[in-house]
């Protein structure tokens, strides 16, 4: 275990750790462009030069391994000058078009130049190298003039994706990033290069010219696109999602998200939302109040329980719903109504998992919470159709959270046999259209909750947007309904629901939002 000294502070690190990483552990920032913790070392931007006692020249902190007895200085006049000089070199041909650059505000060329650079240029601007922008395929737009040739994107495909798409074309000052001839970016991982690009060279066409990044609000969330549970950052402005970016979690997605998840939010934008509670009048669904809608649901279920017995009441949870929502549904049906007819909507995964070189995997199971539903409901009973057909169920409460929920004609016919169908849904899905009462819920970006990913990690997602009209967070709807059956229910927040869940469900024992933090906890 080498012990070294950086800026007078001593630290012992694991063998094989670089000076840059050791400094980071000490809280000392060494500026860098080409270095990225998930990629192979290039050592080419020369921004991380530091002084090491006994070395003739400045050394790159990213590629120099920490050694026992090493004495490193990261802020000497020589180091400061080297940083200034590298920034000067990087900026001579840079277009300095920050006012129209999407990266402004989160650009390392900007940030480092403010911190380490000089205000003046010794370069004549008429000498600037000018080259056309390029489309690299998919959503990737390459602004050649802004590129600083750090090659993070090239190494991303090599080291993380495992198939090389990008390369450096030409040589020297003519170097630029290109796609290999005959190839086009379409790997489902492409969006990540727009995140790791330290400057405004690689841009996401989905976001380009949409917003200034400093106006965006950030909300920590979890991607509901598959059972991986990638940590994401929802970036919003004026109650609208502008982009989804990865949020680092070394236990789950490391630094990456797939493009399916990145652009998933668009899928919700096209849905016809249910904005207020609805009640059926013949063929029509009419707007009603929350109070009336919940009363109808409570009264109809209570009536059927009284006339036919509790076992004629069923409920359908979902592998797309949060742990909290499934738990509350179970609590109402099992504890308050006294029925054991708990079903779960859980489509069978199609296709196969898609894994990349780094281990990053896009799961075939497109539901975010199958594991959580299993932990709450036990073995998933998905066959409510048979129970409806046989007349074993007369009233059904359905919690739909799947954006792709579709019914066949036969299923629609089955549902018409029910005496009462209540649907909690955030859009006018096939099943909502058949309901006697529709309770308007929300989708993941509009609510707080937790998912349990494929490996049994419970992770919290938080509300990023206000939901439209009178719609409510689903846990809140279920709490309101629960209170109709049992006025002793005291839960007033998603956090309260989690505490109740943690108290009553063995698998979740001891959990709380506080304990889950930003990175979640492994429970299975």
């Amino acid at each position, binding site marked *: 275990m080498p012990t070294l000294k950086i800026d007078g502070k001593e630290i012992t690190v694991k063998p094989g750790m670089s000076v840059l990483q050791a400094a980071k552990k000490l809280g000392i920032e060494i500026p860098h462009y080409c270095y990225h913790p998930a990629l192979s070392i290039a050592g*080419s931007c*020369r921004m991380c030069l530091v002084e090491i006692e006994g070395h003739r020249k400045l050394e790159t902190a990213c590629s120099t391994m920490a050694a026992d007895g090493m004495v490193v200085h990261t802020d000497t006049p020589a180091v400061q000058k080297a940083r200034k000089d590298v920034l000067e*070199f990087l900026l001579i041909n840079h277009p300095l078009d920050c006012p129209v650059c999407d990266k402004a505000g989160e650009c390392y060329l900007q940030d480092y130049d403010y911190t380490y650079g000089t205000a003046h240029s010794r370069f*004549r601007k008429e*000498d600037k190298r000018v080259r056309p922008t390029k489309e690299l395929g998919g959503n990737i737009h390459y602004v050649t003039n802004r590129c600083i040739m750090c090659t993070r994107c090239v190494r991303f495909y090599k080291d993380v994706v495992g198939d090389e798409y990008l390369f*450096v074309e030409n040589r020297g*000052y003519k170097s630029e990033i290109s796609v290999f001839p005959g190839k086009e970016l379409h790997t489902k991982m492409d969006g990540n290069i727009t995140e790791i690009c330290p400057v405004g060279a690689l841009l996401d066409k989905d976001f380009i010219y949409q917003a200034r990044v400093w106006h965006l609000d950030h909300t920590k969330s979890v991607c509901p696109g598959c059972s991986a549970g990638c940590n994401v950052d929802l970036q919003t402005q004026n109650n609208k999602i502008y982009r989804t970016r990865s949020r680092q979690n070394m236990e789950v997605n490391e630094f990456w998200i797939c493009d399916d998840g990145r652009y998933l939010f668009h899928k919700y934008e096209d849905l016809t939302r249910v904005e207020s509670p609805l009640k059926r009048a013949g063929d029509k669904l009419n707007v009603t109040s929350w109070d009336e809608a919940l009363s109808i649901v409570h009264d109809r279920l209570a009536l059927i329980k009284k006339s036919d017995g509790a076992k004629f009441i069923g409920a359908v949870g979902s592998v797309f719903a949060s742990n909290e929502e499934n738990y509350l549904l179970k609590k109402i049906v099992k504890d308050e109504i006294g029925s054991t007819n708990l079903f779960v909507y859980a489509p069978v995964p199609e296709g196969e998992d898609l894994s990349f070189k780094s281990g990053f995997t896009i799961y075939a199971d497109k539901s975010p919470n199958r594991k959580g539903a299993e932990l709450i409901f036990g073995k998933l009973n998905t066959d409510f159709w048979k129970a409806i057909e046989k007349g074993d169920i007369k009233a059904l409460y359905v919690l739909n959270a799947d954006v792709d929920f579709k019914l066949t004609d036969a299923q629609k016919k089955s549902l018409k046999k029910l005496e009462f169908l209540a649907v909690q849904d955030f859009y006018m899905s096939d099943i909502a259209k058949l309901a006697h009462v529709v309770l308007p819920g929300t989708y993941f970006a509009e609510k707080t909750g937790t998912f349990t990913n494929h490996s049994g990690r419970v992770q919290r997602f938080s509300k990023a947007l206000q939901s439209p009209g009178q719609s409510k967070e689903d846990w809140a709807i279920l709490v309101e309904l629960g209170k109709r059956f049992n006025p002793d229910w005291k839960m007033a927040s998603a956090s309260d629901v989690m505490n109740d869940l943690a108290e009553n469900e063995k698998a979740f024992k001891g959990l709380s939002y506080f304990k889950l933090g930003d990175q979640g906890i492994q429970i299975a």
Partner: protein
Amino acid sequence: MSELYFLKNRGNPESKTIDFYLAHGGYEALKKTLKSFEPNDVIEEVKKSGLRGRGGAGFPTGLKWSFVPQDNPNPKYLVCNADESEPGTFKDRYIIEHEPHMLIEGMIISSYAIRSHLAYIYIRGEFVQGARILEEALAEAREKGFLGKNILGSGYDLDIYVHRGGGAYICGEETGLLESLEGKRGWPRLKPPFPAVVGLFKSPTIINNVETLANVPLIMERGGDWYSQLGPNPKNAGIKLYCVSGHVNRPGLFEFEMGMNLKELIYEHAGGIYKGHQLKGVIPGGSSTPVLRPDEIDVSMDYDSLAAIGTMFGSAGTIVMDETTCMVDALYNLERFYAHESCGQCTPCREGTMWMVKLLRRLEHGEGTVEDVDLLADIAGNIMGRTICPLGDAAAMPAKSFVQKFRDEFIEHAKQHKCPVKKDKSIKVTDANA
């Protein structure tokens, strides 16, 4: 050493054949080595000789060989760097084309010393004829049993392959060469690890220059002690090929002991300055080595003497410039070369070389300012020592030294808004970038 070694057969077209080589004592050193030397003894003999790398850096050859970790289970490789591209240098080409067996014999002995069973000659892509000659020579050597399995009954196996370069100066940088040899883009690697430990295909690899390897048979034949006596001192020992080009009456390749006096080389052996002109400057060791003024050339051409006066022996590619040479134009020409050949991997070299070219073009065309002169030297200083490979230094050293030693001429360009030098128009230079 009064007799010639490399150039003894100059002008004889037969010199490249194995029959000629054998008839004049060729492969005797190999026979002697395989018969009575253990590999480590060969390394000791070369260490004793004081032989230093002839590619330019001057690293002691025997010492380099001793860095090969013999406990590494991977194969060991010897790679001959025949990517001779430094402007002003044309010594390896002579050996390849006229004395290929000298190189091959040297490679076999050297491979034996480092226990390598596979060696490569990475030859500059433009050396088409050289590659063909080497292929033929290797076939001859194979046929005679100097290559292949069980060489001369010694139990030692070796084969040598010729690999033609892709056509970039940077592939002469040893780690850029290895990348290229592995079929990749010739981007120099970060060091450490050094190639002797992690080289070709992640295996221990020794990379030696053509001339270095071609010296090895002589050392093994006459002994390291004998060789170390040649030249001014044991640290700068042996024989050396000197390339003289530019404004001299008799440009060409010369062979002397190490330590030839630069003034003597120019005025006596190369016939003095062209057309009786005055000497203006000399680049002593290939285009990247700092330039010397006429009052500095009374110097011994060896590694340490030239380093002592702030320049380098390099590849001994001496470029002579007379008074009709514009030093701004000459540097402009050189920097265009380095900007063109910069691989573009690291920032200071990629951006700095082209910036220097732009400044020089302006100065030469009368559009520069006095500030540009200092800026030029400053940029060179900002590249120096900050890059992955020595190409950055190679581009920076001429710029720094030209500005330092011919500052007045640079300033005059800026003040007069034109080039003040009366150039000799009989020598045509095409300006590809103008």
